């Protein structure tokens, strides 16, 4: 088979186990792509993990760095990757050779949970399921570019692009094309036989004219229309979150640079849903490995080993939120509430704590509900809709922050609303700043203007400068960033050296 995969290298025993677990998973209603399991050793596991799960990626030092870290972590016994699975059809999953049989069983059950999620969750619906081939193609193309142009040159450009790789719009694949929208609205206007004054409303009876279109109103409309026209002249017409797309269309790129940028953008979009559904995806897979193991697959002799590895997966650490733990607990909570009917207006309005605690309408809708949730939600809607005050308290969730006075991280509070707000904030845009392109021709000098939509937190100045350096190298003209620092509006400007002469210049000014 391609890529050296061959499911036949599973031992007969593992094949039997796989068929058994697959049977249980289907029995529970999980619906997954064909899943091919591959046995690999820890070295390969670390290599694949460094490659984001793929066996082949384009050459880049950062994969080597990740590999270095993973290998060290493994050698020192600090971390071990039990499983890995890629979102493709058919799906490929890796089993570590050194896993015990009970671990292999758990991993298989876990993997079927993931693949069911990949296949059915709405946010994965636009991902490229042939990504294995695409990644391999990217690798071939980039490698041949490196052979032609030199490794350093291509790698430098990749470094630059990676610095802004997160400036994409993960929701874009789900939106109708905005450009198409503009065109249709323009056509209806011109179809109108009478060229109407901007904003003038249609009047059937002449004597109503000054009531329907008073002069003041018309003047206002003129201003709005003029602004609109100005906006449409601007590129982009409205702030654009997909900075990579904007660069593809507008930056002065060599053909090969264009090619590389486009490839890396594809890869970024491919990985985006995984970041958007981390809690759900891991929660769902953990829910199912736990369910399948404890109700079906586990032998009495394996119970302790299973508990040990399961507990290791769900362990919580101070100041860190384990997505496996939060995810599985929330799915269980939803299932429990929908089984008992503990939701809706009547339940919410129940003031009697004892009644609420013992609420049971015997609806039995839990299983159905969690399947629905796994279909439509992403992490944000998952937390927003289903995390309750009760859940927060039971899971001992808290808000923490840095106390400048004591110079340490401290628990701030356990207030449900604040915890939820903070968590949602962190999940929004993957906890990263919102950056938009607002003007591709600032001051008619070909400068790029970005806008940081400030939401209460300042950017890290040092990283901002470094990132702007990368951006300026791609744009090849000065790059500006509007932001806010300590409640004051600021404009950062990065001016790249012209043709490698002189030095780059970075400045900031209050606006």
């Amino acid at each position: 088979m391609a890529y050296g995969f061959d499911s036949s290298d599973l031992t007969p025993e593992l094949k039997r186990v796989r068929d058994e677990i697959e049977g249980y998973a289907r029995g529970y209603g999980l619906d997954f792509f064909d899943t091919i399991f591959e046995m690999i050793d820890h070295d390969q596991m670390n290599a694949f993990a460094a490659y984001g799960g793929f066996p082949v990626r384009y050459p880049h030092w950062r994969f080597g760095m990740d590999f270095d870290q993973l290998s060290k972590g493994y050698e020192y016994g600090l971390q071990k990757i039990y499983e890995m699975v890629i979102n493709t059809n058919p799906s490929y999953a890796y089993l570590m050779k050194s896993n015990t049989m009970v671990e292999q069983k758990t991993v298989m059950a876990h993997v079927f949970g993931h693949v069911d999620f990949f296949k059915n969750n709405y946010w994965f619906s636009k991902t490229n399921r042939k990504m294995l081939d695409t990644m391999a193609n990217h690798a071939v193309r980039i490698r041949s570019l490196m052979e032609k142009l030199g490794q350093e040159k291509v790698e430098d450009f990749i470094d630059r692009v990676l610095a802004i790789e997160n400036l994409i719009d993960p929701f874009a694949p789900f939106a109708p094309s905005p450009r198409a929208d503009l065109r249709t609205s323009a056509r209806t206007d011109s179809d109108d036989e009478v060229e109407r004054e901007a904003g003038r409303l249609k009047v059937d009876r002449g004597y109503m004219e000054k009531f329907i279109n008073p002069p003041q109103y018309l003047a206002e409309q003129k201003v709005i229309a003029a602004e609109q026209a100005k906006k449409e002249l601007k590129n982009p017409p409205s702030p654009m979150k997909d900075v990579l797309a904007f660069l593809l269309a507008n930056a002065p790129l060599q053909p090969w640079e264009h090619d590389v940028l486009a490839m890396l953008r594809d890869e970024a979009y491919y990985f985006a849903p995984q970041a958007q559904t981390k809690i759900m995806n891991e929660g769902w897979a953990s829910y199912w490995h736990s369910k399948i193991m404890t109700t079906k697959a586990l032998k009495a002799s394996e119970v302790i080993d299973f508990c040990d590895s399961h507990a290791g997966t769900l362990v919580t650490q101070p100041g860190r939120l384990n997505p496996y733990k939060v995810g599985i607990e929330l799915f269980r909570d939803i299932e429990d509430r929908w089984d008992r009917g503990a939701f809706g207006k009547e339940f919410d309005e129940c003031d009697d704590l004892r009644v609420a605690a013992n609420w049971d309408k015997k609806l039995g809708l839990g299983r159905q509900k969690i399947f629905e949730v796994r279909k439509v939600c992403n992490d944000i809607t998952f937390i927003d809709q289903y995390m309750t005050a009760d859940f927060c308290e039971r899971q001992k969730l808290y808000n923490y922050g840095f106390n400048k006075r004591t110079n340490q991280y401290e628990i701030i509070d356990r207030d449900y609303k604040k915890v939820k707000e903070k968590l949602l904030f962190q999940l929004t845009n993957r906890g990263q700043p919102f950056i938009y392109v607002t003007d591709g021709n600032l001051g008619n000098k070909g400068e790029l203007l970005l806008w940081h939509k400030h939401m209460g937190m300042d950017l890290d100045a040092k990283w901002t400068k470094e990132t702007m350096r990368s951006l300026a190298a791609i744009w090849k003209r000065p790059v500006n960033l509007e932001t806010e620092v300590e409640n004051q509006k600021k404009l950062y400007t990065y001016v790249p050296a012209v043709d490698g002469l002189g030095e780059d210049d970075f400045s900031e000014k209050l606006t």
Partner: protein
Amino acid sequence: MSSSIRQDHSRFRNIVKGMIKKNLKKYITHGEMIGRKGKELVSIPIPQIEIPRFRYGDKEQGGVGQGKGEPGDAIAGGEPEEGDEPGQGEAGQGEGKHDLEVELSLAELAEILGEELQLPKIEPRGHKTLKSKVDKYTSIASQGPNSLRHFKRTFKEALKRQIASGVYNPDKPMIIPIKKDFRFRSWKSDVKHENSAVIIYMMDVSGSMGDEQKEIVRTEAFWIDTWLRSQYKGIETRYIIHDATAREVDEDTFYRTRESGGTLISSAYKLCESLIDTHYPPSEWNIYPFHFSDGDNWSGEDTKLCLEMMQNSLLPKVNTFCYGQVESRYGSGQFYKDLAAYFGENHEEVLLSRIENKEGILQSIKDFLGKGK
């Protein structure tokens, strides 16, 4: 398949080495940045190898955690880290917040040092009397133990004999070795000439040598060690401290001891000489005495004695004699002047260096090792 990750890995290692080279001065000046890991490895923090991103400031962020504790309690375990959870491969998403620690072997570090300072390879002194014997199984003998029997050769011999004697029948090929057909693997002794070296560190620990001066000596000694180790196999180090009297100590004591007495440099040189005479015959050893002091000596009389000893008994035995003068507020720095006056600043075997502060370490290493001796 996994050879491509090896390429990425070696590419990463090269970048790291390049960065260390670029920042070598900083690493040398701040010796404490380099952590020892066992005998052969060091770990070095590398800043800014990560790919930059637009991100929020560290201290701005805070977050949501899970577990026990009251509001106001510090989060156990210090700074929370974003990190890679086990499981799903999603490398490149986690954003480490700490400097990356990379491991380097001492040999690699020495190589970087050598390239950056353009240190010449050391030419060992002409004698190669220290021999080491390596046995290699490269030959065949007709006698030997059964455990070393060489089947193929044995049967070849038998076949040869049978064909020669006409016993061999191609239609019914049966080969039976007899005793004289037996062949055995056998070894050849390979004698290698090795150059061994010893470094003898001497340090003035009298009251005027403060902690800062010792830190400089420690840092410089680390780099000298690193370089010489890459040049010689099986290097030994000895440590001598002295004030008015000298004694041999272990490495730890060497850097920690602080005495308050006066200074008689000759005491150290005497001990050094006797060490050489008893343990390190110059015909077998490359000998590197390093002496660090702040330049104060008790009397001109003693200095004279020192100079004589060096000229007559030390210099004929050693490769080079290195004197590093760590400048201190209390020292007069006279000894350097005396040495320079006696031997001249550019003597081939007496290498002098003045180390004003940590910044001077780099130049001093170059002074000592730049001659390739």
